[in-house]
Structure formats: structure tokens, C-alpha cells
């Protein structure tokens, strides 16, 4: 594909991130149904075990990409003045980067 800005890439990103999140949510819910954590120690221990915390981190990364593509689609549909759209997309981008940093701090530094 020769175009620099492609539609396929965003579309694929949306699908792939959706599939990962779907699997993660099923995994997460299954854990709660099978052995619901009944204390802080159990909950913290499970969440901070390396497998789960990495899977959670990937979940949030997928979520951020998914939100980026999804909200960008909405903005492209309804906001037409270019300056306003760039402003909205910039705001969205900053918000998502900030959230990513916040989640990384929670999962990688604060509680481990």
C-alpha cells in the first residue's frame, strides 16, 4: 500500500485490540467467578503477579489504541472545521498518553 495515511491500519488496530480486550475480559471475569478474591492480600497478590500485571498493562495499551481509533472516527464524522478537529484530536491524544502514564505508574511502580 503506497499511501502514507491508510485507513486499513487504523481499522486493523481497532479489530486486533478488540480481540485482545475481549480475551482479557473473559479471563478476568473467569477469575472472579472461579476464585473471587476475598481480601486485599488475595486481590493485590493476584493483580501484581507478573503474568496478570503484564496482561493488564497490555489490556490498557490495547484500550488506548482502541479509544484512539474509535473516538477519532466519531470526531471525523461530526467535527468538520479542520482547526477544531485538530484541537479535539490533540486533546484526545494528550488525554490518552496521560492515562497510559498513570496506568504504568500504578501497575509498574506504586504497588509492586
Amino acid at each position, binding site marked *: 500500500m503506497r499511501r502514507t495515511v491508510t485507513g486499513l491500519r487504523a*481499522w486493523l488496530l481497532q479489530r486486533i485490540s478488540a480481540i485482545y480486550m475481549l480475551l482479557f475480559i473473559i479471563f478476568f471475569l473467569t477469575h472472579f467467578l472461579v476464585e473471587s478474591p476475598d481480601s486485599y492480600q488475595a486481590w493485590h497478590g493476584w493483580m501484581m503477579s507478573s503474568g496478570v500485571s503484564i496482561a493488564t498493562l497490555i489490556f490498557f495499551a490495547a484500550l488506548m489504541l482502541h479509544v484512539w481509533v474509535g473516538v477519532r472516527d466519531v470526531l471525523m464524522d461530526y467535527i468538520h472545521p479542520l482547526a477544531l478537529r485538530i484541537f479535539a484530536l490533540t486533546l484526545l491524544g494528550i488525554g490518552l498518553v496521560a492515562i497510559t502514564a498513570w496506568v504504568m505508574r500504578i501497575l509498574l511502580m506504586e504497588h509492586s
Partner: protein
Amino acid sequence: MKLSIFRFNPEQDEKPYMQDYEIELETTDQMLLDVIVRLKVQDDTLTFRRSCREGVCGSDAMNINGRNGLACITPVRALKEPIKLRPLPSFPVIRDLVVDMTQFFKQYHSINPYLINNEPAPERERLQSPEDREKLNGLYECILCGCCTSQCPSSWWNPDKFVGPAGLLQAYRFIIDSRDQATQERLDDLNDPYRLFRCRTIMNCTEVCPKGLAPSRAIEKIRLMMIKESL
């Protein structure tokens, strides 16, 4: 039979209004078009397009009780009264039920709706196997009436950038034609954030197509071809 019809004459009216009509149904009135042709005898200012009266020319596409369709193949007795007739949504109105289809055809022409083949033409015709010909079924039948594109939310928001269901159905018609050599260029042309990818698979196009075609499936198939190409 009661009808309520969208009226707008830009030379006289400041804004559109709905006008009520009442007409006795006759046994010869089978389709909606039969009725509005007789209405025009009552009121010759009523303006609409029609030509073949059998669902082939695509001229009498209009919004019938909220849903786009062809007046000539819509059985009139099955419609809820008063029958509300409006021009195709989101298209500029020229007068009454007649809309300006310039943008619609501009998008159609943007996909190069013709065979591209640079090999010298054979003496008779470019042959195609029955299997390859089969692939064009469900695509070539499009009459470009505009029902689908006018009912498509993605086309409402970006009519100038999104090709729309009718144009994309035709794009696919040439992409999978075994005689066409510009497949790669056609796929590349559609791979930008707007031309094809504004489609959110809402499927209003397939819902309203009076010829029973499925532009939404054609779009999905183009996407799958793009994935195969890029892998």
C-alpha cells in the same frame, strides 16, 4: 387514499412544506408511481422524476414513509396512510421530490467505473470463464438510483470524502472482474481514512436497496482483499 408530499419550489417558497392529497384508488393503481402520476393530473405543479416505471432506470427513487425506495416497484396498497413522500434524504432538493445527484455521481466516477485493461483488445471480446462471470452477480445489477447512499449515515456526515455504498459496490464490481488489470490501484485508491473506511457496517444500504443488492458485503470483501494484499 391519503398522501402527504414534500413540496418545495425555490422560486416561490422560502422553505419546504408538506402538502396533503387525497385520491380514490383505481384498480389499475398497483404501484405508488401509478398513484402519483395520477396526482400530477390533479396538480400539475407536483414535480418528480420517473421514466421506465419498472425499476430499471432508477429515476423515481424517493423517501417513502421514512424509507428510500423506487415508487414504481413499491406496491401502494401495502403502505401505511397517509403515505409520506419526501425527496432522498441529505441530497440537495431542486424541486419537490427531485434532488441534485451531482455529488452522488461524482463519487461514482471517482472509482473509475470502467474496465481498465492495457493489453491490446482481442479480435472479438475479452473472454471470461463462467465462474469469473458469476462473481459479478449481485454487483452489476445496480441502477444507481441513490437509495442506499442517501440512507447511509456515513455518507450524511462526509458526502464529499466518503465514496458511499453505491460507489463502493461498483468499485468492488471492477476489483473482482477477471478482465480488469487495475485491481491493485483500485485497492490503493480506497485505502485512506475516508473513501472506504468511513463505513461502519450500519447496513442501511442493504436494507433499502430496491434491487436487493448488498453494498455492505461488497465493502467487507474489499477490506478483506486489502488485508490479503498487505500481508
